[in-house]
């Protein structure tokens, strides 16, 4: 069963001032880059032989702002995001989180890091939420997973979703669901938020709302890494990396 939580609340006011994350980060080592990849390669074994998804990628994720991994479909963006989120081990190379290597970590230790340090937002909005829980319970569950507590109504108001705590997730639009997904990431107080094509399944109005949320997050000092080929999102990037055929473009 997941760990208990320490009861540190995330509140809307804190969020406004950027105090929540700063407070949350106080105990963590300060580094210029929250994550670094060095010579990372990912290969998959298939019946047809070995397939290289990512090859010799080295990149730094700054401790603030929006970092975009751009590139066409099949370029290795999602694979790289899975490596960054510690869901997948790279075949080659090193992944550092706050200056510490993760290569030697056990599965249990990697899970512990995922629990407290990393928030991952999937492409499909519904994949980021637990369908049979209410909106409020989704936020509480996300916070609990990281050992925290959350003031739901204040956070929802900040996300532009006031008075929806008792709603079923299915009652929300795709855009609302995706904003709630970022709300969950926020509720967890993660060191870095990773998002895989967060606007690809949304209409433009809903996508705009999600972009606003990303900008808000970055403004509060939360480093955000986004894999996307959405030009509007790429335009918001403080740092961007272009991937082609699994490698960084020159």
């Amino acid at each position, binding site marked *: 069963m997941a760990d208990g939580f320490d009861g540190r609340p995330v509140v809307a006011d804190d969020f406004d001032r950027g105090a929540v994350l700063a407070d949350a980060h106080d105990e963590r080592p300060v580094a210029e880059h929250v994550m670094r990849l060095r010579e990372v390669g990912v290969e998959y074994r298939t019946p047809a032989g070995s397939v290289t998804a990512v090859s010799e990628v080295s990149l730094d994720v700054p401790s603030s702002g929006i970092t975009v991994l751009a590139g066409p479909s099949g370029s290795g963006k999602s694979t790289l995001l899975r490596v960054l989120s510690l869901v997948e081990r790279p075949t080659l190379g090193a992944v550092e989180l706050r200056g510490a290597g993760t290569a030697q970590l056990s599965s249990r230790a990697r899970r512990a890091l995922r629990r407290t340090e990393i928030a991952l937002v999937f492409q499909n909005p519904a994949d980021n939420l637990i369908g*049979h829980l209410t909106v409020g319970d989704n936020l509480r569950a996300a916070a609990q997973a990281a050992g925290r507590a959350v003031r739901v109504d204040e956070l929802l108001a900040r996300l532009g979703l006031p008075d929806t705590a008792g709603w079923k997730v299915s009652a929300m639009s795709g855009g609302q669901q995706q904003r709630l997904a970022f709300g969950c990431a926020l509720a967890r107080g993660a060191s870095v938020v990773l998002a895989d094509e967060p606007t690809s399944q949304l209409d433009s109005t809903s996508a705009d709302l999600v972009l606003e949320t990303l900008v808000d997050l970055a403004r509060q000092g939360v480093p955000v890494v986004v894999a996307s080929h959405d030009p509007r999102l790429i335009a918001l990037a403080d740092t961007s990396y272009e991937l082609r055929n699994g490698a960084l473009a020159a």
Partner: protein
Amino acid sequence: MQIPWRAAPRAALSSPLTLIVSLVTALLLSFVVAAAVMHSAASGSAAVDYQQDRLCTESLHPSLEMRSPPEQVTPLLDAVRQTVGDQPMLPATYTREARADFGGKQTYAKFGFRPGATDRLTVLEGGSKDGLWVPKSIAMTTDLQLGKRGMGGRLPPVTAIYADLRDPLDAWWCSERSWVIPNTYAKYDLATSVVWMPSAASFADLPRELAGTVDVTVRFPSAVPRTVDEAEDLLATGTARVKPIADQGVRVVSQLVLPVENAHQTVGNVRSAILPLTLISLLIGLAGVATVTVQWAQRRHTELRLLWVRGSGPAALGGRALLELGLPLVVGGALGLGVGRLLVPVYAPSTALPPGTSTTASAAVLVVIALSVATTWATAAVRTHRMFQAATTGTRVRRVLAAVPWELATAGLAVWAWNRVQHSGLATPLKIGGLPRIDAAALAFPLLVVLTTALLAARVARWALKASHRASLWSKPPAQLAIRRLAAAAGPVTGVLLVGVLAIGTIAVGSSIAGSQKTALEFKSGTYTGAESFAQVADDTVLPDVLRGNSTIVGLSEKNEQVVLVVDPKTFNDGAFGHDVDPALLSRPLRIGSAPRREVTLPGLPAINPEEHLPSFPKLGTSGWVVPRDKVTSADDVGSWYVWSAKPLGELTEALADAGIKYRNVGEKKKAVSGLPFLTIQWTFGFVTAIGAVLAVVAAIALLLAIEVRRRQNAVSGAFSTRMGLRPAALLSSHLLELGALAVAALAVGLTASMVSSGFAVPKLDPAPRLTPTPELPDVFPLLVTTVAGSAAVVLVAAWIAVRAVRSARIGELIRD
């Protein structure tokens, strides 16, 4: 507990089908295990009951038998009464036969007293209890009248004449049979029925020449034990109770010693015989639980992945599965225990369960529930580990598991079991009246063959479905669509086929072997006695009218292991068991079975060297000769003569007694052969049939579920096909072809495997090989009709569900995600 785990039980309600399947799986699983415990325990009770039926109720408690001078009887009984305390006792005293004078023709008589005896006799004349009660046989011989005092007035007056007791005796008289049944016929008057004295005190006043040494029996009427434990308890307490008297040199008769041993052995035999199949069923059930969990993991994939990326590990996600699926497993397990208890009268050989059986069954079910819960947890944990953490490992393990030739392993076991069948399947009993050792491994042979065939069928089906893309039957669209649907669901299809073959195979094996034992016992008993009932009579006996048409008289002449049966060709088929022999054939001497082809001479018969031959014959079995009665040269020299009747023994003896025909050495088919070894095998395979029925239910539910799970795909493809011109009838025939092929394959493979293996095993599973005939497979037609009808019903329902989904489908809704 975090919210997703806390909310899991409520989340479970989102899929009632999963809950129902989990519940039913656990129900069937715990039913099988609980039923196995109760069945084996009940087999002990049934063994006790069967053996008791062949014993005497009043003497189940260890009883006392002694000889004593008449004057010492009362002090002796007082001593016994003092020793046994409150235990009810029923003493009886009998003189030896002695020449008695009742004033007319002299006769032999014996005198007896047993409290309550006169209440259990049929009075023909008189009835006052203050005098002698004389049997009709003595009264007729001596032309005795009521009120007469025998022995020159020294005996009490005769106050009643009663009908002689005859076989079969009721329970109260049973233990006294050797004293109260005259066992005489016309030429032998020495053995007589009892002249009952009015009281114990009057018994002491008998003239000295009649009293002599007397036989005393002391029975201790007790509650009839219904279970092995009760029988064992009665034996132990009874033995302890009479021990002080036994220590004084009094003979103790303990009828229950061997039955208790046999009942214990029966329980052991049945338990060890049903254990392998129960374990196989347990594994199948746990595989079902794992399958349900895998489907659950697929349905909850999104949530599980979310929890995984948030840091939850396999153990926690296994717990998540448990919180959702655990309750149905526990409830299903409890229901299975309840159903197992309720259905005891249906599947078990006895409804009497020893104390502690329910506790044992509950403990077994608890273990099963724990295993189911552990399986659910482990499956979910491993599944999530494989899905999110080590995607390649599972595939490799699965590939290795699929490549292992399990059927070769089970085939090897089947060969080993066959070896046991041939060499030690049913060993000779170690003691008289004991049970032969029944080898559980030998009994497993037909089931191992069925299991091997089922595994083989599943593998071949898997290969065939893999290769089915080569089949191009578009000229027959229903057939082509049926093949494609089968191939698309290769996993569920092979699973259903495997369980279906096992179900049909076990039902067929169980019912055919149980049936073969039942008929073997019937025919062996019938061949051994020759008729439903028999009684030895004098050579000049003529059948009374009431026995004409249902009885015959036969003679038996034996010398140096040569046996000749003398028959009356005209009436033989009326009374003899089971054989309908041509009377014309019976009018000539016959050689039976392996009897040597040479001239034979036996007392009372002419020299015979028959041309005609029959393989077997009542009483003679497979060796002997048959001679028509008109060839007998001296009836008096033929060893013995019998009335063979198709009527029950009671009716035969009543008819003989009413006609004044004296008889002895009676017997009846149902008690001629100890049937316990046959019944042990019958009970074992009766349970196999019950498990087969459970597996059939599992196969049917799995098939219906597979259809229901594929409802959406069926509906989409079916709706498109019909809109592209496929006629509704063709759609229905396509589904019937798909499901029918599966059912026909399961039926054909299951029935063939079971019939072949049973055909080999049945003749070898013969608990009494010295008695003919050898067990044979029963008529399989009723079984065939039942299984075909059942399978057809399941196929029709499944096809209807599939077609209904298509008819009610709206394409616009179906293609929207």
